[in-house]
């Protein structure tokens, strides 16, 4: 892939890009989790199995996604 202007800025240690990337990674993790949990439920996974896969308790995954 051709190096983008942003990749160049990141390598030049532009903090704005690095900091936004950290926030974007957090958002991405949350959004991928929401999609994967919904799909797991459709496929019949229990809240306990989903919690184990995410490394959190059954209660915490259920209270976050169980509506």
């Amino acid at each position: 892939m051709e190096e983008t202007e942003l990749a160049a800025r990141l390598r030049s240690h532009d903090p704005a890009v690095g900091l936004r990337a950290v926030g974007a990674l957090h958002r991405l993790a949350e959004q991928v989790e929401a999609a994967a949990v919904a799909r797991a439920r459709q496929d019949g996974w229990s809240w306990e199995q989903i919690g184990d896969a995410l490394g959190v308790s059954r209660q915490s995954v259920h209270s976050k996604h169980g509506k």
Partner: protein
Amino acid sequence: MFEHFAAGARTAVTAALDEARHRGDRRLGTEHLLLGVLHARELDPLGALGLDLPRARAALEALDVAALAAVGIDVRGVERAPVPLSGKRTPFTSAARTALRRAVGVTREQGGRRIKPAHLLLALLECPPPDPAAEVFRELGVDRSAVRAELRPKAA
């Protein structure tokens, strides 16, 4: 503070909260206030200047996609969903609090008594870079002075 808010501005703050939570953000920032304020129908004419809710959302997404690409992550084709709303508190960032205070000042300058969406947006236009709302305006290529000129009569 919110007792000085007109109904439209209250709705904007509530919408901002939902925007923040659905994106998976832990704090309500100026970028969410901007999205929230663009929910107000009275600001629809700003679409002619390139500023509307779908475009602002897309600009935020483009900034994220570019930042992720900069750390080597390609999110094209990745299955994602809006984050479910939870009962967790979503505190305001300090920049968002500053913008809300500035909106109070803008309202007074314009001789208004209640803070309307237009006042809130005028306050957000003053956010200096590297503020997240300023980044969205830059990404959109919005002419801030044209937006201000459009807003002044609405803010009176």
